[in-house]
């Protein structure tokens, strides 16, 4: 530790250079953390889902509805504890600058199915009582400034016309993978306005035993196989995962860019550090002359590299973590629960360590091996 002072003095000599090098390390790791978090958030979304929930959709495709009359048949399937259903609404609000999802849901059964959607009991009851009531996610309050009791008009694109809902509740998701910017309104209101077509976009089922998911799903699909609307049933997790795969190879792209970024900065930083070491050849020779051992000189240069890499890592990774948390970033609803994970942080720290080795090892070895006489002679 007694050498720390010497190392700090060395770093302080070219303040601007030290600052720039550290800042570029910090930027690289910030970017690395951000890109990697896109990947982990998509993965988390794909893995979200209770093992005890199944989703039944129309086998022909997600855009085709199922008859509402399946409700009772599904309830009667052995092992199924509860059934709920929902419809994608796809409306526009105002100038449509900020898109958000709206769903028509069966109020009691849906909130019972998703305890993760939490809201005060009185607001829940208000939602259950009133036909045109809707509940909204906390984030929509921040975006549009909506209040409880306010009427909100949404233009349907799939279901034409102006739809007015009264906001009766504001929910907070207890699981980060659930969007906090949805609007949920009542399915019976939806049916009534459309002249009772008797359709549900998809069904969500709660099963008593998670182990039985596969046979129950098969029993359901077998039951409707020869009907007009055959079903495709799977775990909620598989359902969510299928949405994540729609992005295609986005994660691969992000990963590649992340690596390119890290590599580019690595080059630049290693270069700067090697240059600064080369300038000090004479000093190293002097230090050796007055009795510093090769090992200590090696350590000194490595310590310098370590200080730059670790400060950069702290600022870059910590900055990413704090920034996304403070701004509650979710990429306009595309990436709910965007949060830098512990895994990403440790991976970033690993990158910093690698950077330290890559940029410090060569100059440190040069310093340790430097022949004193020759180095001193080179001094002009």
């Amino acid at each position, binding site marked *: 530790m007694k050498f720390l002072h010497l190392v700090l003095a060395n770093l302080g000599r070219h303040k601007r250079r030290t600052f720039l090098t550290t800042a*570029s390390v910090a930027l690289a790791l910030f970017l690395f953390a951000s890109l990697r978090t896109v990947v982990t958030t998509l993965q988390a979304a794909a893995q979200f889902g209770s093992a005890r929930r199944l989703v039944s959709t129309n086998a022909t495709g997600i855009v085709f509805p199922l008859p509402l009359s399946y409700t009772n048949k599904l309830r009667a399937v052995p092992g199924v504890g509860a059934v709920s259903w929902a419809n994608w609404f796809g409306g526009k609000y105002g100038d449509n600058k900020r898109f958000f999802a709206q769903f028509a849901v069966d109020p009691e059964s849906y909130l019972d199915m998703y305890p993760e959607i939490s809201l005060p009991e009185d607001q829940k009851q208000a939602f259950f009582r009133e036909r045109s009531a809707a509940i909204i996610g906390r984030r929509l309050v921040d975006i549009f400034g909506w209040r409880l009791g306010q009427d909100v008009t949404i233009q349907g*694109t799939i279901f034409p016309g102006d739809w007015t809902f009264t906001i009766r509740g504001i929910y907070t998701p207890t699981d980060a993978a659930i969007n906090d910017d949805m609007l949920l309104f009542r399915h019976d209101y939806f049916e009534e306005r459309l002249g009772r077509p008797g359709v549900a976009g998809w069904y969500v089922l709660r099963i008593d035993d998670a182990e039985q998911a596969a046979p129950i799903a098969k029993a359901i699909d077998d039951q409707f196989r020869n009907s007009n609307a055959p079903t495709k049933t799977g775990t909620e997790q598989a359902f969510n*995962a*299928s949405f994540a795969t729609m992005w*295609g190879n986005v994660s691969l792209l992000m990963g590649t860019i992340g690596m390119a970024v890290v590599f580019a900065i690595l080059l630049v930083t290693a270069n700067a550090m090697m*240059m600064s070491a080369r300038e000090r050849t004479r000093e190293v020779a002097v230090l050796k002359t007055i009795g510093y051992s090769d090992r200590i000189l090696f350590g000194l240069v490595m310590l310098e590299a370590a200080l730059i890499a670790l400060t950069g890592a702290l600022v870059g990774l910590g900055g990413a973590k704090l920034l996304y948390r403070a701004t509650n970033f979710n990429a306009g609803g595309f990436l709910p629960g965007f949060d830098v994970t512990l895994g990403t942080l440790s991976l970033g720290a690993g990158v910093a360590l690698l950077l330290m080795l890559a940029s410090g090892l060569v100059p440190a070895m040069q310093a340790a091996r430097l022949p004193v006489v020759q180095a001193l002679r080179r001094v002009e």
Partner: protein
Amino acid sequence: MRIPLIYNLRSALQRPVSTGLTALGIGLVVAVFIGMLALANGFRAALARTGSDRNALILRRGADAELSSGIDRATASIIAASPHVAAGPDGRPLASPEVYVLIPLTRRGEDTTAVANVVVRGVGEAAWTVRNNIQLVEGERPRSGRPEVCVGKKMAQRFPHTGVGESLRFGGRDWTVVCQFTAGGSAFESEVWGENEQFMPVFRGEVFQAVSIRLADPAAFEEAKRALEGDQRLTVDVHRESSFYAEQSEVLGRILEILATVITSIMAVGAVFGAVNTMYASVASRAPEIAVLLTLGFHPRSVLLSFLVESALIALIGGVIGILLALPVNGIVTGTTNWASFSEIAFSFRITPGLLLAGLVFAAVMGTLGGFFPAWRAARMPVVQALR
């Protein structure tokens, strides 16, 4: 008097490793810059080419995508009979009432839980003429009344069971693939086409989603729009096909561009820092040289310029490296879901000469920015002290 360029060239080559590393760092930034913009570019181009200026697309009023629209037979007939619709060589109106649905398919080489929503478009006979640049590359068009389909070239590359003669299963039935088509790289190449009358009973029953028409007079789009939207029997919106599809690329195109800008600007800052460091170190180690130059009577301004040029030169080499790194991605086909239409769209990375030029300019700017302060220091170097 100007310091000759050869001086900078030799100086840069004096330190091949550090020059090379700096250039490579800048090169990587330029490569990512070009690569990401090529992605956004390719995506936008695919949708921009989908629509034609000569066509109009008619949807139910208020529908913002083909998927959410619905048009009954009566409406489709009224539209086809409109005088604004051009007539084909056989005298029949060039109007194609179309069924548009999405079906879940698994991409080649992925497990069955991975799903892409592929567009299935049931078209009228006229569609093959009306829609833009449709060209069969293999096989014959589906015959009327038969369960046959034609698949887009890009779709065929990415999904199994799409070769001519193979049988593709969707909508609970098997469909024989009888041809493959290209459409000038547009989004149609990601679709499956068949006869509208075949798809109707399988999917949504007696309803079309959109009618695509060739305008009798492309310049008279506004009149056609007024006439059709004003018709009491119809509740439709008339879109110019080209702008309709271009708008569908707006959201994702913008996301990709913002992403490209944010990522590359952060990277660029890092690279500029690196260039600054390299040039500072270079100036510091060449102090005696610079002092000699100044003693010889070169104006400090020439020294400043000379170092700026050197920095820009290194950056330009980096720019060229970046271009060489990025060029191989040109034409690579990738795909994602266009959330504006909820459908899978395949498109190619598209590098244009303009994009390459932008990459070079970007590199030069990084070099000049990175070289400025070190060059400034070189120009103002105290001669006596530096010579000592």
